[in-house]
């Protein structure tokens, strides 16, 4: 699928909105965050390094972010562009973030 032009800076808002907690990961070139739900580390999300410039992110990278956030393409756009609230996102995650039996 094709995404609209999304840059690394667009995710700053997502980090704030979802209160993502940065992990101790230090070997990779991109920061990694935990999404905390009900006090538990629930999802682990690698986001682009904001020092990497304002260019559009690759489809492959965006696809990985979208999968780790458990969102569809349209929902990812909503999360970035603000229509989706933190509570709405929490409801989505509650419904899908379980290991397969």
């Amino acid at each position, binding site marked *: 699928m094709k995404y609209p032009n999304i840059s690394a800076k667009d995710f700053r808002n997502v980090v704030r909105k979802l209160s993502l907690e940065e992990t101790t990961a230090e070997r990779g070139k991109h920061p990694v965050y935990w999404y905390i739900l009900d006090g538990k580390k629930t999802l682990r999300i690698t986001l682009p390094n904001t020092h990497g410039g304002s260019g559009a992110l690759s489809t*492959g990278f965006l696809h990985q972010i979208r999968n780790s956030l458990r969102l569809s393409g349209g929902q990812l756009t909503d999360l970035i562009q603000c229509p989706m609230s933190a509570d709405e996102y929490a409801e989505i995650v509650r419904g899908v973030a379980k290991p397969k039996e």
Partner: protein
Amino acid sequence: MIRGVNPTQDPRLDKTQLSDQTWLVADTDDDVSRLTSRMADVAAEVESLRLAIEHQPCIYPIEITDLGSDAYNLVRPLPIIIEEYREDDVVIARWPEVEVFGEGHNPSTAIQELKNAILDLYDELVDGDLSLLGDLPLAWRRILCKTITR
């Protein structure tokens, strides 16, 4: 449409025969017109399929046998997935079972980034506080402990 001399104006030709030939040519012209239109439709569909295929990554599985660090060992070869996005000149290497990936401009750099991401995840989950982990990270931790030794 009939091309050339209008056959109905040529006195050397039989009128009845002319009439049949006129219909024949007119039908053929209609067929050509329909085929030309259909070919244009097919060309447009082929172009749209070509673009769709171009945007699809080339995906294939490989195995890695080492994590790029003397301090960590893989218990078994690790099956990973490589995704090559030609339009962006980007390669993603990922281990779907624990949701880690590495990105690079070629498979080699993407795999190295993946190895770094695996080691970061291992250290964090194995050394961290278990009571803070949700169901999914706990499942990842179990898999990592069965796959990697330190």
